[in-house]
């Protein structure tokens, strides 16, 4: 059975604040289900913008982006939010956890937006915590965690809704070698990320080495 096209960028250009300088210009990219794609490039080359475009957090200046055949440009904010909740697991560069909530509450948060009840949410979050081996830390506030621990929690949170597409922005940046290896093993391991389409932006060559496909993004704006 052939792989299905899940993400399609056609002639996508993006500039910010009405600037004539495009971060991207006429980008074409097709990603199939189950692919592990790494976008490799220097800081400031637009890797994060690529993920924001794919997840609908920002709109292209020109061109069309389709996710599972649906045109993001035709969706309003509410439909985009719903699509993000149902389709994407996102790990941001700064993890974007809510410091006032505990680890387990942060992990179960995406399920709230899928309308899943409290008991089921807690059950699934506990299961994920067990898989990544941090069950004992469940009730700790994330504000007290190290960067590496926050990264692990953010990855767990991105997995909780069993999304078809996982976007990770520089997941090993600012991590010590041990934590970086732990993150890599989570990405490589097949228990959590099996059969998912994964897009990782990085300038870490270790991640590039485990990718199914690597695309290089050059810095366009000096």
């Amino acid at each position, binding site marked *: 059975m052939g792989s299905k096209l899940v993400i399609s960028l056609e002639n996508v250009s993006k500039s910010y604040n009405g600037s004539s300088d495009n971060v991207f210009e006429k980008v074409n990219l097709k990603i199939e289900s189950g692919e592990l794609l790494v976008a490799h490039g220097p800081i400031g080359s637009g890797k*994060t913008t690529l993920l924001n475009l794919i997840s609908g*957090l920002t709109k292209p200046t020109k061109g069309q982006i389709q996710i599972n055949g649906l045109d993001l440009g035709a969706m309003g904010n509410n439909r985009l*939010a719903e*699509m993000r*909740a149902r389709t994407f697991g996102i790990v*941001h560069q700064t993890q974007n956890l*809510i410091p*006032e*909530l505990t680890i387990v509450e942060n992990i179960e948060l995406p399920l709230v*937006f899928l309308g899943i009840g409290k008991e089921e949410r807690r059950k699934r979050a506990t299961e994920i915590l067990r898989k990544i081996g941090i069950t004992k830390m469940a009730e700790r506030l994330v504000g007290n965690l190290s960067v590496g621990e926050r990264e692990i929690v953010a990855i767990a949170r991105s997995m909780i809704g069993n999304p078809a597409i996982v976007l990770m922005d520089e997941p090993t940046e600012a991590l010590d070698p041990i934590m970086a290896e732990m993150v890599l093993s989570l990405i490589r391991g097949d228990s959590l990320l099996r059969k998912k389409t994964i897009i990782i932006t990085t300038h870490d060559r270790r991640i590039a080495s485990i990718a199914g496909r690597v695309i290089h993004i050059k810095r366009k704006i000096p």
Partner: protein
Amino acid sequence: MEIIARGLQMERTQLRLGLVIALVITVNSVMLVSSIGNGGQYVIAGLAFASMFLVEYLLAKQSLNTSKRNVSVLHQLGAKSRSITISVLARFLLFGFIGILGGYILGVTAIIVLQPISIMYGLQALLNQGFIAHLVTIGIAGIGGILTGSYLGITRSLQTTHNDAISFSIRQ
């Protein structure tokens, strides 16, 4: 909804301030309505509505503005503006309702205590159906002010925060 409200860092200070102001407005309205006749009660109800509206609008807006970062995170995770609005509105309504109830108790107590100097009504007036109807009008006006004020404050704040969610994400 509880987890969203906690995740939004709902400022207890702002909610308590909303409660106290609702209480003070209700006390004043109840006391005034006991000594004014000739349709003046409706003016008082109107003033109660306007005061509650303004206070709750400003408090709700400020409350969300202080939680801007967390609102952005919720948007990124797929929260619809409607979910955030409902959870914040529920809290403001709850605290405002408690304030109004407290205002009734304090206001009526004050009327009983100050009975000798009450001009038009006295203790007997508390059992007067007209007076009770005016109290109900004040309550409805107060809740209406809280509901519309906080709703408008939340939606106005979310409009700007949604755009910030994008720029917040881009800045990383």
